[in-house]
């Protein structure tokens, strides 16, 4: 079933385990994501779902197992190849929106200021806030800030986009505008791994949904299949809880 090291494999985790001191956060995670695939990871808090995404972003280290990205080992990636969107946006407050977007292209990719700015404005258009380029992040709403954060990652022209609960810190009325941008991105064929509890989004966009609990992938499958008939009792209980609200 698993086509190892095929050119169309974007991410491959094999037997990945991770501990914080004595506490095991990830237990023998194996997962393959194809190029262009959209994977949604859900699960209760503390299940290790954020850790998986942070591992792929290079923000954490693991103690056991292998991670291959785009067929190669992790550290061979070009800077910015893997875009990351955080729950708390993490925009740079001392820089304008435009400077937030151009910092990576100029300082990490070596683009000229003009090239980077042109690219930044194109992506601001794409996340539908071209008029906010000169403002500071603090002057924007949460939804706008998260869209800037998405544009900032896109400016590095990543091959894979990671989202760590991108709408969890947002007021309800701002969730839709962020999800719309993400759906646009998905429609363009971006490979995406998204930790989220937005099951409507998962249903519309995800090729597969992975349910994690206690550091394991308990169940993984196509949305229509898992929503209709979850195989494990834990996933059924979880879905029952979050879909009721």
């Amino acid at each position, binding site marked *: 079933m698993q086509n190892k090291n095929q050119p169309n494999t974007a991410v491959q985790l094999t037997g990945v385990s991770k501990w914080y001191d004595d506490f095991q956060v990830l237990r023998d995670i194996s997962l393959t994501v194809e190029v262009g695939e959209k994977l949604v990871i859900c699960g209760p808090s503390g299940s290790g779902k954020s850790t998986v995404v942070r591992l792929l972003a290079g923000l954490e280290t693991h103690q056991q197992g292998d991670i291959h990205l785009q067929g190669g080992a992790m550290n061979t990636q070009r800077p*910015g190849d893997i875009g990351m969107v955080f729950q708390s946006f993490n925009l740079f407050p001392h820089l304008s929106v435009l400077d937030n977007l151009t910092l990576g292209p100029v300082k990490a990719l070596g683009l000229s200021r003009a090239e980077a700015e042109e690219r930044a404005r194109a992506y601001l258009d794409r996340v539908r806030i071209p008029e906010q380029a000169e403002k500071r992040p603090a002057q924007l709403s949460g939804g706008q800030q998260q869209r800037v954060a998405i544009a900032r990652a896109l400016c590095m022209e990543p091959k894979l986009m990671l989202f760590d609960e991108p709408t969890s810190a947002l007021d309800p009325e701002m969730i839709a505008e962020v999800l719309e941008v993400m759906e646009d991105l998905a429609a363009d064929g971006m490979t995406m791994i998204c930790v989220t509890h937005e099951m409507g989004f998962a249903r519309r966009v995800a090729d597969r949904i992975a349910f994690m609990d206690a550091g394991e992938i308990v169940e993984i499958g196509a949305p229509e299949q898992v929503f209709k008939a979850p195989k494990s009792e834990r996933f059924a209980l979880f879905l029952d809880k979050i879909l009721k609200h």
Partner: protein
Amino acid sequence: MTFRTIALLSSLLLLTACSAAPGTWGWYVIDPTTDNGWTNIRFLIRGFTSTIQISVLAAVASIIIGLLVALPAFAQNRWLRLPNRIYVEFIRAIPLLPMLFWVFYGLPVVMRGMGISISIDPFWGAVITLALSDSAFTAEIFRAGIQSVPRGQAEAAQTIGLSRAKAMRYVILPQAVRRILPPLANQFIYIVKMSAFASVIGMQELTRRANELVVTEYRPLEIYTLLILEYLVLVLIISAGVRWLERRMGADESR
């Protein structure tokens, strides 16, 4: 209004304030209306030059050394962090006066022992000592300021491909500076006041000049009162400058 009249007015103020204890005071030593008093005042305030020069040079050096000492504190390897701890704990523990003696009298001897012939004059002795002594505190201020920037900032910088050095330069330090500025200003005021110790190794700054005048005029109370006012003026000017700088930076970053 000439400088002489300002001096006259302020000394008159002092006179009235202190006239409650007649016989105790002899303000004639620094009375700007008399030739002798005016000469004395001019002799005393010429000390501003050295005090300011020593303080500014020491503060700049202290900031540079402090930053260089603080940066290894953020290394992932604990052996790289060790020099930072040793430097801070060791330098912070040395009182200024013994350190001044050690640098001024001892350092040339130590260097000669190593085959390097240097002579340290009182000016540079004071600058080096103040800079070293203060750098341990500056390093701690930098460390605290850098640590106060949320972790997510460094993580975001990493995910857009910035190296650790570039993340520090373009993301962390610019944000840390705002939090660092007020305690750094405190340290600068501390340096200005501690520069008085330079008088013991013969540097003719404010305090040394006051001491010399006391020896010839036998009016310590009046002369040291003026000395305190001289430091007060200096510190108030620094405070005003820092407040202006803070306002400017605050307006620059709307949050």
